[in-house]
């Protein structure tokens, strides 16, 4: 029987998230104090050695991003840390779990990250619909300032940091780091070409470190307990834990923090209680809309960036949406494609028109089945073309679920077999 391993969410349900005194009594802000006694290059080294990878979905080595930003900033004096709290991937609510249960953990993680690049200004870009998180984070920042964990001369070290919350207003695309920066600058959320990456040229043209909420929330425990401690948890390619959010046809939908390496079966059938109403498992969508479908043959796969990639799947945000044997794969595919169509900003012709083609094509397949002009291979061809010609991850995404359908659920698209 597997259980959760709560190293990030250790305070969840045990402290009052609105009281800094509770957080401090549980050992909070000690880690920031330790970090500020070190040289920033030492912090970067520890984070690299911990093997922490980005928890927003891309899985990039966290410490390297820090290192590049630190190095870029040599020329320009302005540097920024941005916490990406624009959680919008369907099926994902792990960042909300952190912000609503332990907002100070995020603040402390931000202090450590900002210090590593000597940024004196940090922003939390928080989605507009997360009202409770906004309340709690605003309170946490105010309390941290009162306790002098933020502001001028933190812990008497001479380091100063100001954190400001900026709320979004309903745009999935603003969760992509460069689009987020455009939005922060007061513009429409259109992506930029990369390179240059934010680490080199980000907010207001200055080196900017953009980190996901969960990524930042791992920093305090890494600094306090060390790189070796963190690296010893998890697997060879994925150190640490992951907060999984599971929804759909399971008895216990919700969030679970698990050690990397637990199997999908462990998560779906043990932690989440399996499929209700005596039904059977049919499929799971891993990583949200920009994710991949798997069938029961993949349930033994251990959780991790590379282990999932090896079976044609993605970890992504850590969202798992479970479908029972009564659910319609074609309808779900249509749902996903509609989502991308709604959220496309329209900047790139392939994405703007391509998503329309995919959505209409899928609708046609559902309506006219074997008489449809479209089929799965055609949709994949279109989506593949889009992924090569779109500026940002949104246009690059539809090909992921579609290709996974080819691998695991091709039969659903073959009407002659039925």
């Amino acid at each position, binding site marked *: 029987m597997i259980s959760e391993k709560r190293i990030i969410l250790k305070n969840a349900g045990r402290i009052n998230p609105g009281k800094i005194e509770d957080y401090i009594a549980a050992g909070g802000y000690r880690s920031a104090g330790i970090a500020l006694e070190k040289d920033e290059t030492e912090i970067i080294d520890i984070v690299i050695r911990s093997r922490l990878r980005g928890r927003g979905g891309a899985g990039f080595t966290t410490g390297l991003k820090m290192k590049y930003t630190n190095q870029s900033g040599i020329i320009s004096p302005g540097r920024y840390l941005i916490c990406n709290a624009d*959680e*919008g*991937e*369907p*099926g*994902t*609510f792990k*960042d*909300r779990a952190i912000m609503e249960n332990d907002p100070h953990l995020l603040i402390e993680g931000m202090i450590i990250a900002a210090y590593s690049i000597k940024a004196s200004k940090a922003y939390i870009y928080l*989605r*507009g*619909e*997360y*009202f409770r998180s906004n309340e709690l984070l605003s309170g946490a920042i105010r309390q941290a300032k009162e306790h002098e964990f933020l502001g001028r001369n933190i812990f008497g070290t001479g380091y100063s940091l100001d954190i400001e919350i*900026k*709320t*979004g*207003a*309903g*745009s*999935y695309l603003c969760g992509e780091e460069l689009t987020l920066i455009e*939005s*922060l*600058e*007061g*513009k*429409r*959320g259109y992506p930029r070409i990369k390179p240059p990456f934010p680490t080199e040229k980000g907010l*207001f043209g200055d080196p900017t470190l953009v980190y996901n909420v969960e990524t930042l929330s791992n920093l305090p425990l890494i600094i306090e307990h060390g790189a070796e401690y963190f690296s010893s948890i998890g697997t060879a390619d994925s150190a640490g834990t992951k907060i999984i*959010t*599971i*929804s*759909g046809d399971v008895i216990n*939908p*919700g*969030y679970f923090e698990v050690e990397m390496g637990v199997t999908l079966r462990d998560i779906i059938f043990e932690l989440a209680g399996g499929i209700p109403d005596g039904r059977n498992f049919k499929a799971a*969508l891993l990583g949200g*809309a920009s994710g991949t479908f798997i069938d029961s043959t993949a349930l033994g796969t251990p959780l991790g960036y590379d282990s999932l990639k090896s079976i044609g799947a993605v970890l992504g945000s850590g*969202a798992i*949406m479970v*479908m029972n044997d009564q*659910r319609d794969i074609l*309808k*779900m595919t249509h*749902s*996903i494609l*509609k*989502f991308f169509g*709604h*959220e496309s*900003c329209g900047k790139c012709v392939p994405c703007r028109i391509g998503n329309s083609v995919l959505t209409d094509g899928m609708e046609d397949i559902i309506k006219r089945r074997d008489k449809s002009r479209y089929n799965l291979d055609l949709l994949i061809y279109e989506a593949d073309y889009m992924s090569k010609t779109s500026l940002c991850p949104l246009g690059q995404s539809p090909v992921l679920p579609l290709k996974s359908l080819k691998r695991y659920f091709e039969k659903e698209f073959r009407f002659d077999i039925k």
Partner: protein
Amino acid sequence: MNRTEILNRFRPGRENLLMILNELQNNSPEHFISDEDMREVAHYLNIPLSSVFGVVTYYSMLSRIPRGKYIIRVCRSPVCEMTGSEGILEELQRILNIRPGETTADKLFTLETTECLGRCNESPGMIINEEFYGKLGSDDPGKIIDHLKSGIR
């Protein structure tokens, strides 16, 4: 708080545009951003009116048209759609006699759709102003609307 007071709370830099618009909308009794608002903001920030217009029309939570006291936003993303959001939306349309994007004649309710709210473990879900309602069954829209109409909440 009037418009000038709200504007003056922010340094006149373009990076404050979205925050200013959010504040203006939150303080507006009809939950929208008027043409006059946009002109004042453009003037305050010293940016073209078209830039302000561009931002207002891009973000789905911002509205250029007056809305009701209660803004109902039903999630239509994959998880909620799979678990029954279409039925919820249809029920709301039936009860309120309006389509998504419209406001009831008594100006109480505006019906809108939204994408993933990050409450997928309680699907299908919707938010009304800042309150979330989840695990919605076919009876719930009616009960919730009645509650709001009678001013219990």
